[in-house]
């Protein structure tokens, strides 16, 4: 309609010019120009119309109610089928003091893993809050994995976090289980951090204003879990101290890296574990003293031009060294015989994961622990080393291979095989088939 009208106007105005100049080609030229102008104007009208409608749509889509300020909610579900040669209820890591937390492989057959429920949002202009609960399927309990407030209003590179959080000791300890590259954690985490250490406390962290990434931080905690002990409760002050620093950067566009050093110092008192004595009777022993752990970690990631969508490679490793000094009480429940204990033990792992096709990754991990030197002073108790069978010298090892399929950013199906030499003289062959999915808010993962 517009077009016809404008054409008519154009023709009417063009006609006298044409008569005057008597030039048909010029008239055609003018017409063409006018036509272009009309098209352009029509385009603008169309733009304006669509802008108006869409602005209206967007305005009406804006949430009006209080629910607009709901925190980001996400749920992680995971399930596993495990085929194990050895009964996981007998799981132990020989050569190192047991952690008394559940570090055994999942139960044989089908089992539901821990489901995670996460809420996160900025509280105000100063703080951000996060709550991550884990629902354990077997004992019907809900645990708090992380529950923190964290500053966002500080400047000059400072961040303070308080509450319960995964301690910044080593690399993988800070990563949630659903983002691990293998079904289970490395042996070193099982032996030195009781699986995964989350501490109640406060963390101070400072990022240096340098081009190369450099941070320094410290954590003061209650010492609620291994390598400290639950019985540390009831005392004022911080019973665990962690110091950490990281360096990180890029090499060209394709490689980025990070390395860290951390030192965790705790004073466990009455940290108990179960063992058997030289006659095979079950006993409960307990350790009190100081525990000092050093961890060196490193991770390197490669992808062509830094675009991990099609191919990428990740190399990760950590070395743990622990020094414990104190007294080990044998059979706390009846005989209660005191022994001196000084130990230096270590462990490490290295793993590599390669995404060879979009959605497909394969990886290998090697684990090794060393019982190191254990100086047990039994002069006062009259016991022998045979009364502490779990502490007998041993080098646990483990090989794991995995392949996983990631149909989207939100789902992963993994097959893993492992040959586990944690138990002295009883190698275990393990197979896991696992799914891990996330629902709800899009998570962001740490480097």
């Amino acid at each position, binding site marked *: 309609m517009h077009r016809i009208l404008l054409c008519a106007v154009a023709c009417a105005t063009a006609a006298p010019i044409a008569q005057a100049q008597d030039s048909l080609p010029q008239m055609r030229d003018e017409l063409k120009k006018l036509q272009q102008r009309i098209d352009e104007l029509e385009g603008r009208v169309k733009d304006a119309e669509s802008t108006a409608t869409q602005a209206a749509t967007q305005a009406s889509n804006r949430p009006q109610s209080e629910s607009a300020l709901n925190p980001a909610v996400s749920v992680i579900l995971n399930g596993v089928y495990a085929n194990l040669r050895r009964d996981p209820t007998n799981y132990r890591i020989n050569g190192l003091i047991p952690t008394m937390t559940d570090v055994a492989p999942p139960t044989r057959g089908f089992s539901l893993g821990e489901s995670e429920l996460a809420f996160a949002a*900025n509280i105000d202009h100063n703080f951000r809050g996060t709550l991550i609960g884990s629902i354990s399927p077997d004992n019907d309990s809900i645990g708090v994995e992380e529950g923190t407030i964290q500053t966002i209003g500080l*400047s000059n590179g400072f961040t303070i976090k308080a509450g319960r959080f995964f301690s910044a000791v080593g690399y993988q300890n800070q990563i949630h289980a659903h983002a691990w590259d293998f079904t289970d954690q490395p042996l070193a985490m099982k032996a030195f951090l009781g699986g995964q250490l989350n501490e109640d406390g406060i963390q101070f962290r400072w990022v240096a204003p340098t*081009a190369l*990434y450099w941070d320094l931080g410290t954590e003061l905690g209650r010492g609620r879990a291994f390598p400290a002990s639950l019985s540390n409760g009831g005392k004022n002050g911080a019973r665990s101290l962690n110091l950490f620093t990281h*360096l990180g*950067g890029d090499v060209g*566009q394709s490689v980025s890296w990070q390395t860290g050093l951390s030192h965790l110092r705790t004073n466990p008192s009455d940290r108990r574990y179960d063992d058997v004595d030289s006659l095979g009777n079950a006993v409960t022993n307990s350790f009190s003293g100081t525990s000092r752990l050093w961890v060196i970690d490193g991770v390197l990631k490669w992808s062509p031009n830094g675009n991990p969508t099609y191919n990428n490679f990740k190399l990760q490793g950590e070395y743990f060294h622990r020094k414990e000094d104190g007294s080990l009480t044998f059979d706390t429940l009846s005989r209660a015989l005191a022994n001196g204990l000084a130990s230096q033990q270590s462990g490490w792992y290295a793993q590599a994961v390669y995404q060879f096709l979009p959605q497909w990754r394969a990886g290998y991990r090697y684990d090794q622990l060393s019982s190191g030197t254990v100086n047990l002073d039994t002069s006062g108790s009259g016991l022998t080393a045979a009364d502490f069978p779990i502490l007998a010298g041993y080098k646990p090892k483990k090989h794991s291979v995995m392949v996983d399929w990631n149909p989207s950013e939100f789902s992963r199906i993994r097959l893993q095989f492992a040959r586990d030499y944690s138990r002295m003289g009883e190698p275990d062959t393990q197979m896991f088939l696992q799914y891990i999915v996330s629902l709800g808010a*899009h998570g962001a993962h740490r480097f």
Partner: protein
Amino acid sequence: MKTLYSIIAAAAFAAIAAPASAALNVFACEPEWAALAQELGGDKLSVFSAVTPMQDPHRIEARPSLVSRMRNADLVICSGSELEIGWLPLLFTQAGNDRIQPGSPGFIEASQYVVRLEIPKVIDRAMGDIHPSGNPHIHLDPRNIAKVAEVVTERLTQIDQANAATYRARAEDFNKRWGEAMQKWRQQAQPLKGMPIVVYHKDMSYFINWTGMREAGSLEPKPGIPPTPTHLAELVERMKRSPAKAVVYSPYNNPSAAQFLSQRANIPVVPLPFTVGGTPKAKDLFGLFDDTIERLLAVNQ
């Protein structure tokens, strides 16, 4: 000994103070916003782009070097609309920088200032990695660049008042040049009207909308899901019935799926710059549109 201490102290002070005393640090999530900031701030700014043209802005990681950059940033410009959701939130929480937190003058979420396309009526992850607040790849409509330029200028003058006059003058100059360029592109892109193209990811929607082209399909079966053989076979069939004029892809896409379709359906494949630096000719925002239009015109015979 005393002199040694003072040398060390001076060096340490220089190391800490140097980055702060230099030009205003601009952290752009994507190269297009880095280019825009450069146009508007010139040598008053030190501009960094987190993503390169070869990287998928959805997929990069919150790597340590980005935390460092974020820690020292005075202004952060990102597309937003959940495009950077996999990494940007971590940078905010790890950087310890209150100047650039969401809600402060130092953070610009560019997509909030333009009319967004493809806002889903139904939101369900079964539809792929969809963005509840609409398609985030807003920069390929030059009108959006003009709108975001206004916001960036306003923020620059607010944050760095000493150089406000410079920013205003540069903005005026940019607006003039951009306006003229838009006129030119509108003319040049006339023949593209109605041209059907197959895209890789839905990252060309704003360009398609602006030029009046037609999206005849996408190589990804669903946003963020890589091309599958079934979907490609279906596309080949569809192209046989009503062929598109071209199949296009961006530098961060793997060209093999585009080439597959191109060979089977006998339609030309056109690599597009997608962002500043995506092709040698797209060395700034002007070059980006020049080259995109030129490459499409070349196959629109």
